[in-house]
């Protein structure tokens, strides 16, 4: 069957209604290709993350080891960040794993530390940064350090919110089941002897999570399929937004203020948000404009993108409620701006 060519066909009526009139068929065809590029590049990493989460669910169904991870305000995020070395994937792959950590009852700070720092603190990203900037040793040091600072800062910030205001209800419910009764009441857990029992006819004592049985492979893969599809849907939405913004905002606008210390940081933060490129290759992209921007702006680009971008927003919305998402975005922006300013003061 001969496939349609987007440039050679009239726009579907729905797209015409949704898109601004300035987008002609050529621009739309280009946007469609950008969208496909973003999506197809991210899907393997998403699948990798979902499969790692499934393996963790199957190999350690009780999640006992997760609850033994350090939970201190500083040690928790730091240990979570260190877990990044075990998962050489970009931020799309980290979201399902972080979701598993949270659902498995891992300390909040640890899971958040992993979510925010692991996209930078993994061997592939560090190696690609070193390959792209062999002549900038300060960057090789400041990128991982900055990622840890951002992760710890965000973990401390988000811990200010009660979990029920931070996490999505279904994730919270699954998490409650794994948390010990010393931390969560039966009412909060919504199972056991008080709350919504799945089948009251059968005894379902409030067993400690450690006694949970290993689910069958079928059940794990069914859950994995559901998780992949729901995350893929969010990824599609994120890629769509990132593409539309790329079509509307010429990148040269963002790089036009490259020489101004603060403005350049803000512009490169916006660029990272819009481009939504994966953390394993963002250093090579940064290489193409490194000479045009301040050092602080360069580092800001490399720090912000792995934590938050338009493509990631959809995925993160499966973890966090809107308030948590807003706090994450604002907190990251503030921390990265401060780090960028400090670097500019030091390097300029």
């Amino acid at each position, binding site marked *: 069957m001969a496939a349609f060519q987007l440039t050679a066909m009239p726009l579907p009526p729905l797209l015409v209604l949704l898109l601004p009139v300035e987008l002609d068929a050529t621009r739309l065809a*280009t946007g469609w290709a950008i969208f496909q590029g973003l999506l197809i590049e991210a899907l393997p990493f998403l699948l990798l993350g979902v499969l790692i989460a499934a393996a963790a669910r199957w190999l350690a169904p009780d999640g006992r080891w997760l609850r033994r991870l350090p939970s201190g305000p500083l040690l928790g995020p730091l240990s979570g960040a260190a877990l990044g070395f075990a998962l050489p994937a970009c931020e799309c792959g980290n979201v399902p794993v972080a979701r598993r950590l949270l659902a498995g009852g891992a300390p909040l700070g640890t899971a958040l530390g992993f979510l925010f720092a692991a996209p930078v603190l993994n061997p592939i990203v560090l190696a690609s940064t070193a390959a792209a900037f062999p002549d900038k040793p300060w960057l090789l040091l400041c990128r991982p350090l900055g990622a840890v600072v951002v992760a710890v800062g965000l973990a401390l910030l988000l811990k200010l919110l009660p979990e029920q205001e931070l996490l999505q209800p279904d994730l919270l419910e699954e998490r409650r089941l794994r948390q010990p009764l010393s931390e969560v009441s039966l009412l909060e857990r919504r199972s056991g002897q008080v709350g919504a029992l799945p089948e009251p006819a059968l005894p379902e004592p409030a067993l400690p999570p450690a006694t949970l049985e290993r689910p069958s492979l079928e059940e794990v893969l*069914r859950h994995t399929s559901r998780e992949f599809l729901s995350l893929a849907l969010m990824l599609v939405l994120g890629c769509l937004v990132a593409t539309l913004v790329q*079509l509307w905002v010429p990148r040269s606008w963002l790089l036009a203020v490259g020489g101004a210390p603060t403005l350049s940081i803000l512009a490169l933060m916006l660029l990272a948000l819009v481009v939504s490129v994966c953390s394993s290759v963002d250093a090579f992209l940064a290489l193409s404009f490194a000479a045009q921007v301040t050092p602080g702006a360069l580092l800001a680009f490399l720090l912000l993108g792995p934590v938050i971008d338009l493509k990631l927003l959809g995925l993160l919305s499966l973890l966090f409620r809107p308030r948590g998402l807003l706090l994450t975005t604002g907190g990251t922006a503030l921390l990265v701006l401060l780090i960028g300013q400090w670097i500019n003061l030091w390097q300029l």
Partner: protein
Amino acid sequence: MVRNPAHDARNGAILRALALGLWALVLLRSCVDGRLDLLLRRSFHPLVALSGVVLLLLALLQARWAFDSVAAAPSGRPPQTRPPGNAPLPAESRATASREGGPARSRRRNPGERLDGLTALATAFLAALLLALPPNPSFADLAAQRPRDEGSAGELSFVLPPAQRSLTDWVRLLRSQPDPALFDGDLVRISGFVLPMPDQPPQLARLLVRCCLADATPVGLPVRWPSGSPPPEADQWVAIEGRMVMEARPPGATLVVVPSRIRPIARPRYPLEP
């Protein structure tokens, strides 16, 4: 309305199998129909193919279990509602069951199941859309939106004889050796797409990609197009044979490609350069 939970579960599994199968098809077909060459850097291609195979396996397993479950529970009893004996449910099942609202609602289709079905349906539709509409970007349009690549000259690993240098090799070489006199008169045999320039004649350009088309940045060389005939249209791919010639352009002398032969060509199989 009383529903058959076994059929609901089977329908959900079939929808998931369909969606996963279509996504697998998107990834696998992209690997063979040249779509990936247009979208991604080549180092990512094996990863995409492997993901397609994994998704296909997942889809086949889902489909098999869907039909097995109905065969095993013909009376309509959903399979694996409870583990045998008094063993506790796995946490996911307990969470799902409590979301479903317990036994009072077990004969109706629960919201979680409906949401799963809608998600599978939506993703299946999107995958079908990707299959039906392959990408066909305008490189000139994309390049016009992007600043020039200013990557370091260190990316040039070795220097080829002039006639074997690609357009990207030339750009990197000129960046590393900015003195135009060094290359004046050199033979040029390059290909690229025509990129219109504001207030200047069009250049011959290529897109450099680190990851995917979203991060593409253009590099280009100025060309002295033959007078008397209009330059090729934007986005047209051409192969040029000619020489490098020094030309005085503000702020100083620069090298321009002076073609002796211009040949329109089809877009090459690997249009993106690393």
